[in-house]
């Protein structure tokens, strides 16, 4: 818990639930008759409503992007390094909107919500939602908040895909599209990892075909495995060597250690946890399984797998951007092997082909895919500089 609130924190924040009665037709053809979105906002909307920034969350994110819910919180929101007074997304100048996406499990309508038609949990019956569906729901939220055009829509990874979709589906409603650690669509390898995650969940005996709530259990082991495999793809080899290679024992040279620190200082010659990295993954998996809904995880991975804005344009992404009217900033991170720089560059190339205004940074960072969530100095500097410019635009 924070003993005191740092000066550059947005402070104690309170999420707000927005209810929508207008039915939302999903890409699958199914219809959500009504739904709720859980939303947090930071900063003040200016008089001409031009200073709003939308934050799109990634796979396991939610609306709580910055600040604390109470002084008892151990950690601030997931992107607190980037959002706050004096931070790159400066809440003294911008009105920041962050929501939990449909199908999520942090308050917005999702598999753990009650289906008004049946009076019981949606569970596995919650329709598969896509990035496009999320963006439509986010546009309705913008309408509700009286925001005609976002100063910027910002997101990393799956969040970056939402940003891309915004620039395509609502070209007049976005001034700047900022995409971090993003790819134009998943590769077979990306989908393969997602399928392993899904199989671990659905193969858990406690999954009960998604009706686990009715049995008073959760597929804990499956979710844990799903998170463990996901987590490996978020880190880089170098980040793991660094994190688990403190080399206090027999191997003094960290470079020779390769991140092989032992948990108990010696090998067990059994099948229990020997290495720190194993213990870390267990801990991460366990913590995640206690807070995240398994059906939501399945949905989020499907949204990733299905994302491909070029599909409506004969596979030519540049055509998808034909009507985009915003300026683009894309950032990749050198050790990201989930969406390596070359994948982000595919988007840059498509934007250049479409004749769009785009800036692109290839950041040297050891932290892998997760780098976009971390205060990598050069990345933070570039965000600050870019958004400063956006601020000047919306103020004048």
């Amino acid at each position, binding site marked *: 818990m924070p003993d005191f609130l740092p000066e550059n924190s947005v402070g104690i924040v309170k999420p707000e639930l927005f209810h929508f009665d207008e039915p939302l037709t999903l890409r699958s053809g199914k219809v959500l008759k009504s739904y709720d979105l859980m939303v947090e906002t930071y900063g003040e909307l200016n008089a001409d409503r031009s200073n709003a920034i939308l934050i799109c969350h990634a796979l396991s994110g939610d609306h709580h992007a910055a600040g604390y819910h109470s002084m008892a919180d151990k950690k601030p929101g997931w992107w607190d390094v980037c959002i706050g007074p004096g931070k790159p997304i400066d809440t003294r100048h911008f009105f920041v909107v962050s929501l939990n996406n449909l199908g999520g499990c942090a308050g917005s309508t999702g598999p753990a919500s009650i289906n008004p038609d049946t009076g019981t949990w949606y569970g596995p019956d919650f329709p598969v939602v896509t990035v496009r569906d999320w963006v439509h729901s986010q546009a309705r939220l913008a309408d509700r908040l009286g925001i005609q055009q976002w100063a910027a829509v910002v997101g990393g990874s799956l969040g970056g895909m939402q940003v891309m979709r915004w620039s395509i589906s609502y070209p007049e409603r976005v001034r700047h599209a900022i995409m971090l650690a993003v790819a134009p669509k998943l590769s077979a390898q990306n989908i393969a990892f997602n399928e392993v995650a899904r199989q671990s969940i659905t193969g858990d005996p406690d999954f009960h075909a998604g009706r686990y709530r009715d049995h008073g259990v959760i597929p804990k082991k499956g979710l844990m495995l799903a998170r463990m495999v996901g987590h490996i793809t978020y880190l880089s080899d170098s980040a793991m060597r660094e994190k688990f290679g403190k080399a206090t024992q027999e191997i003094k040279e960290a470079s020779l250690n390769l991140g092989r620190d032992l948990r108990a200082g010696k090998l067990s010659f059994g099948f229990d946890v020997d290495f720190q990295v194993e213990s870390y993954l267990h801990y991460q998996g366990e913590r995640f399984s206690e807070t995240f809904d398994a059906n939501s995880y399945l949905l989020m991975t499907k949204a990733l797998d299905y994302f491909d804005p070029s599909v409506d344009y004969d596979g030519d992404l540049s055509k998808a951007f034909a009507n985009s009217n915003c*300026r683009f900033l894309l950032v990749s991170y050198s050790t990201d092997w989930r969406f390596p720089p070359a994948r982000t560059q595919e988007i840059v190339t498509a934007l250049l082909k479409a004749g769009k205004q785009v800036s692109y940074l290839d950041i040297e960072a050891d932290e892998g895919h997760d780098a976009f969530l971390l205060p990598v100095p050069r990345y933070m500097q570039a965000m600050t500089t870019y958004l400063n410019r956006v601020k000047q635009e919306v103020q004048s």
Partner: protein
Amino acid sequence: MRADLEIIQKWIKPGSRVLDLGCGDGSLLGYLRDNKQTIGIGLEIDDTKIDSCLGKGIDVIQQDLNKGLGNFVSQSFDTVLLTQTLQAVHYPDMLVEEMLRVGKNCIVTFPNFGNWKSRAHIAFKGRMPVSDFMPYQWYDTPNIHFCTVRDFDDFCRHKNINVITRTVVDNKHRDSAVIRAFPNLLSEIAIYHFSRGQQGNP
């Protein structure tokens, strides 16, 4: 404004699309945007310079010129610029070819190694030239492909490049009749404006 930029900007059409290879802090693109309403993009590799571009609202792509311009569509820019960078790339000939592919016309500036000061440095001192303008030692210089005005003229002929304008100036970017009379000996900076030559007209 940098003196070479003063010369270059005369060749840029208002409202045209400009690609600046090695755009530095974005000064030229900023000037062209503000005075010629151009739509510009810069390529740059240096982090600090990229940040300067972003601060000016100049679009910049972090990209190594030695890896080519494969991400740019043919003939997608009116003008492609390469100022004081030709001598620092691995394959100047390939980069110029790429410039001609991407741009309808191109502008290249480079330090003229045929200048009398460079010649004197080698002839009398027996050492590679080091000056305020090119302050590097042979082992740490980024400039790995020096050429002279005469070399570049030959290059353009061999490569079927149509030189629209050749301007030669001293290191203050001053033009004079004397320099024009002996360009390879007296000029310190050469500025070429060129396009692809006609087919079958080498």
